[in-house]
């Protein structure tokens, strides 16, 4: 086999490159004459305009097929996720570490809770109705204003000792902090199959020792009249019901791992892949 490629010197390469940029003989700029460049640009312009048009048309027709009230599928939302407030997310997940004697360590937690609960003031909830029934609040028609559905009121005072009203420090300085558990909204999800789901917090890994907690509202239940959720468009003022957990007897200067599950039929909390489905785990350490 013979050598086919002949080596070019650097200056030859530069010369070739210059000729490529502007070739005075053929009046070509980067391999094309100017008029050719105009044509090709026009072609690409037209091509991309058409492609953009097709893309927009596709998305437009996609939007036309969608139901504005609820998504077509909830493949991933079989069971709700559970979240915790305050939610300080460290390297090892949710962690609530503070020192009772150092208010700087827990100020942040209180602010988070207060900010979170501003959505639950009577003023914020004034469009929602008071519900008393302990069954699902099923609405087949749009009874609310502007073709909406009604939502039940959940005000922070329902959290009693943990409402931040009686104790603005949520028990943090006493070493008996209030934590708020929230269950994620899923449209037309009926938790508990007729019985109100409730929150149950335990130590992780050490079952022998019961965790002393107070739940607010009583029993730590999410009342059934907050369910089902009909979506943002139908229930623009809907707020998630909450359960507050007041940890009563936490040994100081020791780190604990605590899990709060939402217990109820249809709520899965043993998905190995998803640590936040049906439960929330966090680490707690209170120093003094």
């Amino acid at each position, binding site marked *: *086999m*013979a*050598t*086919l*490629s002949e080596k070019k010197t650097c200056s030859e390469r530069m010369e070739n490159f210059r000729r490529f940029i502007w070739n005075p003989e053929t009046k070509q700029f980067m*391999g094309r004459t100017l008029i*050719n460049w105009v*044509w*090709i640009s026009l*072609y*690409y312009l037209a*091509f*991309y305009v058409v*492609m953009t048009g*097709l*893309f927009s048309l*596709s*998305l437009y027709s*996609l*939007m036309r097929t*969608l139901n504005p*009230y*609820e*998504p*077509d*599928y*909830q*493949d*991933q*939302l079989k069971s*709700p*996720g*559970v*979240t915790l407030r305050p*939610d300080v*997310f460290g*390297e090892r997940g949710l962690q609530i570490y503070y020192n009772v004697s150092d208010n700087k360590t827990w100020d942040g937690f209180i602010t988070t809770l207060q900010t979170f609960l501003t959505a639950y003031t009577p003023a914020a909830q004034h469009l929602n109705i008071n519900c008393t029934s302990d069954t699902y609040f099923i609405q087949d028609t749009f009874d609310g204003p502007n073709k909406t559905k009604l939502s039940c009121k959940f005000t922070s005072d329902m959290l009693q000792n943990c409402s931040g009203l009686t104790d603005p420090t949520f028990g943090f300085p006493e070493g008996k902090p209030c934590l708020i558990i*929230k269950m*994620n*909204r*899923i*449209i037309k999800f009926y938790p508990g199959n007729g019985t109100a789901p409730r929150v149950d917090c335990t130590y992780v890994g050490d079952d022998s020792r019961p965790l002393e907690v107070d739940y607010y509202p009583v029993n730590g239940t999410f009342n059934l009249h907050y369910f089902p*959720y009909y*979506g*943002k*468009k139908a*229930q623009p003022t*809907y707020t*998630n019901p909450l359960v507050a957990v007041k940890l009563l007897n936490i040994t100081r200067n020791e780190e604990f791992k605590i899990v709060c599950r939402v217990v109820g039929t249809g709520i899965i909390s043993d*998905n190995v*892949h*998803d*640590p*936040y*489905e049906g439960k*929330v785990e966090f680490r707690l350490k209170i120093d003094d």
Partner: protein
Amino acid sequence: IQLLEVTQHVETHKHIKSDDHKLSTEELEEKYGTSISKGLSSARAAEILARDGPNSLTPPKATPEIVKFLKQMVGGFSILLWIGAAFSWISFGIQFAQGAESPFDNLYLGVVLALVVILTGIFAYYQEAKSTNIMASFSKMIPQQALVIRDAEKKELPADQLVVGDIVEIKGGDRIPADIRLIFTQGCKVDNSSLTGESEPQSRSCDFTHENPLETRNIAFYSTTCVEGTATGIVINTGDRTIIGRIASLASGVGNGKTPIAIEIEHFVYLVAGVAISIGVLFFIISVSMRYKILDSIIFLIGIIVANVPEGLLATVTVSLSLTAKRMAKKNCLVKNLEAVETLGSTSIICSDKTGTLTQNRMTVAHLWFDDQIYSADTSEDQTTQPFDQSSQTWTALSKIVTLCNRAEFRPGQENLPVMKRVVVGDASETALLKFAEVVLGDVMDIRARNKKVAEIPFNSTNKFQLSIHETDDRNDKRFLLVMKGAPERILERCSTIMINGKEEPLDSEKAEAFQTAYMELGGMGERVLGFCHLYLPENEFPDTYPFDTDSMNFPTSNLCFVGLLSMIDPPRSTVPDAVSKCRSAGIKVIMVTGDHPITAKAIAKSVGIISATSETVEDMAKRLNVPVERVDRRQATAAVVNGMELKDMSLQQLDEVLCNHSEIVFARTSPQQKLIIVEGCQRQGAVVAVTGDGVNDSPALKKADIGIAMGIAGSDAAKNAADMVLLDDNFASIVTGVEEGRLIFDNLKKTIAYTLTKNIAELCPFLIYIIASIPMPIGTITILFIDLGTDIIPSVALAYEKAESDIMNRRPRNKSKDRLVNEQLAVYSYLHIGIMQSVGAFVTYFTVYAEQGFLPTTLLGVRVNWESNAINDFEDSYGQEWTKYQRTYLQWTGYTAFFVSITIQQVADLIIRKTRRNSIFQQGLFRNKVIWVGIFSQIGIALILTYGLGHVTALNFTPLRFQYWFVAVPFAILIWVYDEVRKLFIRRYPGSWWDKNMYY
């Protein structure tokens, strides 16, 4: 002449200091410590063997396997992928040190990338090794045996055990086992063609006839063959020290360059790597300036590299080439070097041997002259009858002479073989006559038995005739028949009458004139002419007891009756003229390079079409115009027959001029050394040159050629070693099928690359839009690898089976500097047209999946940071629902799967449009290439398995996708097909137009 050139050739490099041919037998015995009667002792032989090594040629130095393997590991795109892997590990290291949540993703990605490189490297290495193995097994031959005298005993030894001083005996048919100084010969003739290319056997004797060891008659050379007779000799050189060994080692010095396809692939790799690196760096800068973390930017960079690099492509190219190599092997072209498959396709000049390649390599009776008329005989390979007029009495007489005055015999035990295939003991002309007679008359041996031979004078160079006297098979005719054949003018001299229509007529000047005309005509056709005459000896003078004595010649050898002429030629193979005309229409120049006589060479060149019927050489023109050769305008002559002697005196410029100005060239009487000069001359014209050769000293030219083609049957090992390809049937026509395959694979590789490059854009766009618009990641790096190395592999190989769109043998060979494998049009059309359409289709699917699960397109813009945050487990969608991180990630994987599926679906369309570059799919036919359908089904099958079978393996990032999402991209697939049909329609309608120039790749 030729031997002298070889000598010069060899001497310029290594001086031959040998005077063994001048020494007497006794001196030789002394020099080598041997005895002619007893040979060496076994112990002494073993000593010498230990000193000199075995008597075999050292095979050319092979690249160590590990180096070949490592080359595969770093060649092509591997470097880019290694960089990607390194970046992955670096970012893993950083993340791990920072204690981030899931740093192992990057570790795995790095491992996967490294695995991809290693596996594709192993694959390519394996493919290479496999094709090399075919060759290795081929070249392994039955070990040669030699008859040696050792310890005063005759022994059969493997030839590689021979040592200097051994006494060997050879007989007709043997290959000479080493360089031998002959000490005893009997009618020994050797065929030196493997050394010199000269096909005429040369006699060997014990006499010192020439100063030059290569010219003298008392030395026989290693690897030449003894044609007839027997000889005994002393081994004077073994192994690499033989003349052949020296030439072979010379050949290995000729440089080995890159094949055209290797250059094309390199060009392509640079192009894609250039695109990958520039886009990567550009977006690295963009992402850094958009305040992404450096680490994130590095991860984007990896993604961009992975998306841009067609990981599976080089493996695909290797497979396609080896498929073609296999196909070619079936058509008798055995390819040693995979890349040579394509080289043959870009060949623009073929320098072909005559003997054996263009011709059948056997003398055959071509014409007869009797009754003042020339008859043509059938010279095809498988003649069973001869159609010429056999009714004349003269023919009966002539056939008798042909049959009887002939010493050649069939080897026994071949009665069932066709006549043409039988092995004959005898020289080439006699063999031709024997076979001719056998075909026409039937059992020759039986005729000879019935006409018992009573005396014979074999042919010798002084009297130039052969004579024998026979009894006749006619019981009533007691006369003896004297038959004679020989050089026509010598035969005519001895005749006083001539047979016309079975009657003896006096040989007057008019008849002699007719003889001359016929003789000239046959000779002018380059044929070897023999004259035949006979005489019935009068019964009264020669009774059946008459003692014939061949020494005193006590019988008449003049005043005979001239019967006729037979002319013989090594006829062209019947497939060759067609193949040459195919070459011509394919724009390939066929140059004949032969050691034969110019007249014979020209005659064969004319009969196979290398010199076409209408074209003339300068000499022809001079003859026609009746002017001296010097006054003819050389430029008007399209053909040229160049003699080796002329070539010797030519300057390089003159040679270039000849090669340039004449389209039909024959080089005659050339030495193998001159072949090299011719090849170099052709390469100076910028041609891709294929050279055929069989002799050892062809090997430098074979190496020098862009593609060296060795003959599988007649070829020497050295030629096969130097060549890139071996013609198993030694047939020129096989080269043409090879050219066709080579051109086809070039076209098909274009299609494969176009197919593969297209989806790179659909894999790249997600990253770019992810960086710019901060949407959730549309496709994962691992998923991309599943496309590149999973679904796309079989379809891109399937394109290698595509039939040619038009007659590829009707266009000129590609211009290697202009017709690139991957040209601008191909890249632009794949990247910026079809690639963009694919991306749009895939993005529509992506947005559909997200929208139907709750995230409308508008919601997705700018969500990247929150979306990917592990801390946010109540991420709100467009409907107010809240999602945990895992639920989002799972949706993201569903998005990956949807994107993957859409690319796959659209690649089906891409595959179909890539079947043709110019013709409509309907012209090409959807079902002619069945393998394409295997490709389509495999593609969809693999996608189904990944999606539904492995959809639960989280590490692979596939999810069982809802079935309807498979169809979202279908309209875009149809659009791709329609767009491409329109493109091809305009290309066909408006050739040479702006559209054609910009859209045809």
